[in-house]
C-alpha cells in the first residue's frame, strides 16, 4: 500500500529533522554543487565573488516551498560613480540554478530586490551582485523546506 500523502510527508520530514542537524554541523565545510558554482561563475565571467556587502534574507525554515519570500540587499551608495549594476540569485537543487537576475543603476536609489521563489527541496542559495567597478560580491543562505501535509493528489 502506498502511504497517504499526510503520512509520507511525515516520514520525509523526520528524515529532514536529522538533516537539519547534519547541515548545521557540516555547514562550514559544505561544498556547493557543481551546477550552482558554474552558474555563479557564468554570471561573473569566471571571477570569484568576494563574500560580504550582500544580504540574502530568506526564512531558514520554510513551511511551503512553492512561495518563499526572498530579499537581496547590497551595500552601495547607488551614485553614478559607485552603484550596483546587476543582482542575481542562484539555487542548488531546483532543476535549473538560475532564479532571477535584476538590472539596476543609480536611478534605483537602493540596491534592493524582493521576490518569491520556489524551492524544490532543502538547499543552498547564492546571491551575487555586480558592482559598477566590475567587482562581484556574494552572500549565501541554507534553507530547510518542510513539506505540506494533505496535499492534493
Amino acid at each position, binding site marked *: 500500500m502506498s502511504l497517504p500523502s499526510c503520512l509520507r510527508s511525515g516520514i520525509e520530514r523526520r528524515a529532514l529533522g536529522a538533516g537539519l542537524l547534519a547541515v548545521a554541523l557540516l555547514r562550514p565545510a559544505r561544498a556547493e554543487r557543481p551546477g550552482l558554482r558554474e552558474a555563479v561563475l557564468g554570471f561573473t565571467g569566471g571571477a570569484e565573488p568576494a563574500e560580504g556587502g550582500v544580504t540574502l534574507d530568506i526564512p531558514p525554515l520554510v513551511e511551503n516551498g512553492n512561495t518563499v*519570500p526572498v530579499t537581496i540587499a547590497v551595500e552601495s551608495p547607488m551614485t553614478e560613480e559607485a552603484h550596483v549594476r546587476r543582482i542575481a540569485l542562484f539555487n542548488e537543487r531546483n532543476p535549473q540554478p538560475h532564479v532571477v537576475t535584476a538590472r539596476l543603476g543609480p536611478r534605483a536609489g537602493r540596491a534592493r530586490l524582493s521576490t518569491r521563489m520556489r524551492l524544490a527541496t532543502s538547499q543552498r542559495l547564492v546571491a551575487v551582485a555586480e558592482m559598477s567597478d566590475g567587482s562581484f560580491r556574494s552572500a549565501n543562505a541554507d534553507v530547510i523546506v518542510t513539506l505540506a501535509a494533505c496535499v492534493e493528489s
Partner: protein
Amino acid sequence: MRRLLPLLLLLGAVAEARESGFALMSPETQAMQRDDDANPAMLWVEEGRALWESAGCSGCHGDVAGMRGVAARYPAFDAAGGGPVDLAGRIAQCQEARQHRMPFARESGEALALAALVGLQSRGMPISPPEDPRLAPALARGEALYRERRGQLDLSCGQCHDENAGRRLAGSPIPEAHPTGYPLYRLEWQGMGSLQRRLRNCMTGVRSEPYAYGAPEYVAIELFLMRRAAGMALETPAVRP
C-alpha cells in the same frame, strides 16, 4: 493504522481558546496575508471587481460595498432548495435564476474572484450564522459528517481538528479548522481555492473519496464549521501554507 497517528503527533501546546489557522503560520506567510499589496489573493479580488461590473452584478446590487456582512452569515437557508446554500451557491443562483445564464463553475477563477470580492466586504466582521430553525437538520448532518470516521486512515475531522489541534502532524501544525478566510490563497495550490477545495484536501489526506463540488455534504460541513466559528473574525481573502 489507528495506532499510527499518535506516533506522528508530536506533543505541542493544545489550544484552549478558539484560534484561526492564521496564528499557526510563519511570520512571512502572516505578513503576506496582512498586507493587501503583497497578498496574491488580491489579484482575484481585482478580477472580482471587474466582473462585478462586466457580469452585471452591479446592475442590481449597485456598489459591492452593499455586500458588507453578507459573507459572515452564509451558508443560509434557501427557500427554493429547501436547505442551506453557501455563498458560492447563492452567487450562482443569481446568475442562473435572475440573469438566466450559465453560472461560473465552482472553483473557476471567476467564481472564486466574485466570492473573494463579496467576502472581502465582510473582512474583520464576526462570523454570524443565521439563527434559522430550518437549518437545524443540515447543521446536525454537518456535525455528524465532521465526527464520522472516514477513509483508509479511519479518522474523523474532529480527531485531528479538536483532539489534536495545535499539535503537529509531522511538520504541519494542525489548525482548529475554522473557515475564517475563504476563499483563500493557499501556497500549496499556488492559487485561490474555496473551503470545499480545502475540505477535499483533508478528505483525500485520509484517503477517503471526496464529494463532488457543490455536494450537499460539503455545504452541511461548511454550515457546521461556520457555527463552530461563530463570533470569530472573517479574514477573507486569507493566505494559508
